[in-house]
């Protein structure tokens, strides 16, 4: 018992060389660390402060007027713009991210097979990454270049409307009408999947084939588990991309609020909006992380369970030892005070 304890307490002191190494590490990271303070922590704290104030900028000075939670009540209660935008954003992200990821995976699987002109197709599917930017997209959408005229969105919506609630059906219609844009967002994801697929060990597939596994089984039992981390990576990349893309209405709303000349809006109002927005984005990321994050595999879990068991047993052991010591003490004192009469062989008790 005591051996275990000792081993835990003993922490090896870092040597001189290691210390120097660590110092060099800090040196290399130093610019970024300064940046964290200057461009992350400080602005974060500042904007947290701003959101409780109404900030008015006059040519002479910047006036801070304590507002309390008034900014929030204004955003939520007085105009429906922001809450509605938020709901649309969440809905859109939750629907579109899986579509983009699955679509990217399908294309990557198709390109991964024996295919002539693979280079050409890769070139083609990667092209949007170069072009895609807010204003260009807006321009293309506004000129109707983003929808295929041959696709009858109305018919699709009504077809889905038969067995889906209205809201879901209309969002499905929206997806189809913005199909090209959705596909355009999946350039990087396709390449990430493709390069992950090419690194799956072919011996695994061969082994599965010898054991009589079909292509379908191979996909679910080999391909998917191997590239699962990439699924998560792509999902998060997509969320972040969509949340900072200029087509997103919310971020434009924040910018407009920041520079609107009205009395009640301004930096404070915009900060409150930005905070709520980023909390929502983070929550969406966390949601996808929980859904797709790697669960510990069986072996890992077994090891953990075993460790826990050991700990429990050790605790029990300790308890027993403590008890027995206490009991021994009690017994000893009892004996001293002649509490227990033992049979001394004299014949009577």
């Amino acid at each position: 018992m005591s051996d275990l304890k000792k081993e835990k307490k003993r922490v090896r002191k870092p040597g001189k060389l290691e210390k120097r190494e660590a110092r060099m590490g800090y040196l290399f990271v130093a610019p970024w660390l300064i940046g964290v303070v200057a461009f992350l922590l400080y602005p974060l704290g500042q904007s947290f402060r701003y959101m409780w104030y109404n900030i008015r900028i006059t040519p002479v000075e910047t006036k801070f007027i304590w507002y309390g939670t008034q900014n929030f009540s204004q955003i939520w209660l007085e105009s429906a713009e922001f809450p509605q935008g938020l709901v649309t954003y969440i809905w859109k992200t939750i629907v579109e991210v899986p579509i983009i990821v699955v679509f990217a995976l399908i294309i990557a699987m198709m390109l991964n097979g024996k295919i002539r002109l693979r280079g050409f197709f890769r070139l083609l599917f990667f092209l949007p990454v170069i072009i895609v930017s807010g204003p260009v997209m807006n321009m293309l959408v506004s000129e109707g270049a983003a929808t295929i005229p041959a696709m009858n969105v109305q018919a699709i919506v009504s077809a889905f409307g038969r067995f889906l609630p209205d809201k879901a059906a209309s969002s499905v219609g929206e997806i189809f009408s913005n199909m090209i844009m959705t596909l355009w967002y999946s350039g990087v994801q396709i390449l990430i999947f493709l390069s992950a697929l090419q690194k799956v060990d072919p011996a695994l597939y061969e082994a599965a084939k010898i054991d009589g596994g079909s292509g379908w089984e191979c996909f679910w039992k080999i391909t998917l588990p191997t590239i699962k981390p990439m699924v998560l990576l792509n999902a998060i990349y997509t969320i972040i991309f969509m949340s900072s893309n200029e087509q997103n209405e919310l971020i434009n709303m924040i910018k407009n609020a920041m520079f609107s000349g009205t009395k009640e809006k301004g930096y404070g109002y915009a900060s409150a909006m930005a905070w709520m927005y980023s909390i929502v984005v983070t929550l969406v990321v966390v949601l996808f992380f929980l859904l797709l994050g790697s669960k510990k595999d069986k072996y890992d879990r077994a090891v953990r369970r075993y460790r826990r068991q050991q700990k429990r047993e050790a605790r029990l052991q300790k308890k027993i030892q403590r008890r027995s010591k206490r009991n021994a003490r009690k017994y000893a004192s009892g004996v001293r005070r002649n509490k227990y009469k033992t049979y001394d062989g004299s014949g009577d008790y």
Partner: protein
Amino acid sequence: MSAGTSTKPTTAAGTIKSVLTKDKLRRFVFGTRERTGVGQQILVYGLLICIGFVYLYPILYMISTSLMSMEDLLDTSVKWIPGSVYLQNYRDAAKSMEFWKTFGKSIAISAVPTLCNVVICMMVGYGFAKYDFKGRKIMMGILIFSYILPSQVTMIPTYVLYNKMGIVGTLWSFILPAVFGHGLNAPIFILIFYQFFRQVPKVLMEAASIDGAGHLKTFFRIAVPSAIPAIITVVLFSFVWYWNEAYLTSLYVQGLSGDAFWTNLVIAVKDFDMSFNTKASVGDTATSLNESVRMAATALSIMPLFVMYLVLQRHFVESIDRSGITGE
């Protein structure tokens, strides 16, 4: 079924033959375990070509519309192929956007911060990958957190800060964060370098230090040359992302004032309608604003990156393979 189970030997033999041919056909179309069938291949190629067309559709539409003259636009019989190649749209759009001037500014806006981004991200990635120091894990956590956090939340105080420093409306507002490792999408680049340097064998560094190289020398002589694939990836992506960034550029570098010096092509597309109308009212351009001109402007703004993509296609497409995001 009944034919197959019939007792007569002659018919049975016949069915076996027919079954064989059917089987062959099935194999031919659907393939076997060993090789894919023709049907599968047709399906895959068909799907790829269809999706490829959908991908290209906006660009094709843009190019064809931008080459149409007014008559072609009004003529309902002209759908895809314009009657004649009409380049006036491009001339008008270029004039309205001040193409060459804006082009030069775009390059400056993208190239200078990219340079800082690459150098600093490489250093930081190297530090994270090769040294073990206290708080490294927490720092990595902060790094990922700073990627997830939308830039909007830090945007307002940063703007105020820059305003105080007087660098809003100058290129410094992009260079400064890049120098401190907080350029556009810097966390991704740091992670790319981190991944990359972790794969460089430690023996190499140790050999260098035994031969008397200091930490900096090891970094510059061994780590940097071995990281060239990652550097190419980061340069390309950083350049493209800075080029396509309109939101932050218009806020920091352009400074939102009316008569700003800095602008880039993407912002020019955004403000195209307004600037075109003012130019047209002066009588600088031949045509009035129509979709052909707007598409021409869009095409012009895409053009430089498009050409760059065609020239450097191999580097772009293989970039993700080589950056080691997907692990080894």
